[in-house]
């Protein structure tokens, strides 16, 4: 399935992701890492779960509001339900042991020049490239 190259939208969207990370640090002193934010509202919940829950609600409301106001949020999932379930469990296990994901390591951690985050991001980008190659060219080819 082809998708259109969207340089302006992707630059603007990326800047907003970065702006939210800077605001969360400036106001709350927290890293905008989705892994830790989600983990903090799962039982046993973190003692400061309130801001995390509010962040998650805000993150979910914004795209829904864009759609409600007549905007489009392109979305397509070109994988099977079995892949979604297996891949979802694998993502959950991986980000827990790896202490972060694309937002925490890839954006906030690299922005701080954290060696752990730089290594983590190189590693998960490499295995993602390899997995997509195998799925699309070895298994699917």
């Amino acid at each position, binding site marked *: 399935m*082809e998708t259109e190259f969207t340089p302006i939208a992707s630059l603007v*969207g990326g800047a907003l992701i970065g702006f939210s990370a800077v605001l969360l640090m400036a106001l*709350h002193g927290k890293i905008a890492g989705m892994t830790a934010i989600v983990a903090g509202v799962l039982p046993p919940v973190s003692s400061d779960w309130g801001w995390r829950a509010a962040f998650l609600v805000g993150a*979910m409301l914004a795209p829904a509001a864009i759609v409600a106001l007549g905007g489009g*949020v392109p979305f397509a999932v070109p994988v099977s339900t079995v*892949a979604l379930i297996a*891949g979802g469990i694998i993502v959950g*296990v991986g980000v827990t042991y790896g202490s972060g*994901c694309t937002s925490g390591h890839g954006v906030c951690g690299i*922005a701080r020049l954290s060696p752990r985050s730089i290594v983590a991001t190189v590693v998960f980008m490499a295995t993602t490239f390899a997995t997509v190659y195998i799925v699309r060219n070895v298994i699917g080819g």
Partner: protein
Amino acid sequence: MNRVVSALVIGAIFGTGIAISGMGNPAKVLNFFDIAGTWDPSLLLVMASALAVTAIGYRVVFAARPKPVCAATYDLPTNRRIDLPLLAGSSVFGIGWGMTGFCPGGAIPVLALGNAETPIFVAAMVTGIIIARTLRQRAAQLAAA
């Protein structure tokens, strides 16, 4: 400003960024990783832009204020060890990201768009987080005993 209200607004900015950038669209994310096929380089610009704003913004914030507006201290990770859990966990995360096109930050914002796929992925991801947390706690208890 109230901490919950400000976190809600910051979350909404994050969600808007995910929606506009295409990071919440698995088809687009997977195409970034398919250089030999239907390559879409957009994700590179999302990451570069987010990283540039965050790197500059953090420096400005840390230089301008000794502590955050609504909290006592900046809560920054202090662990600097490149250890096995970091390497293995990150490797495993990439496999799941490549299988689905969903990462945690990309999936949560598109959870309320009414499609069937995101809730399935998020439920599986939450299950994986709970399983891994339980295993890590057991291992820590055994190591301490």
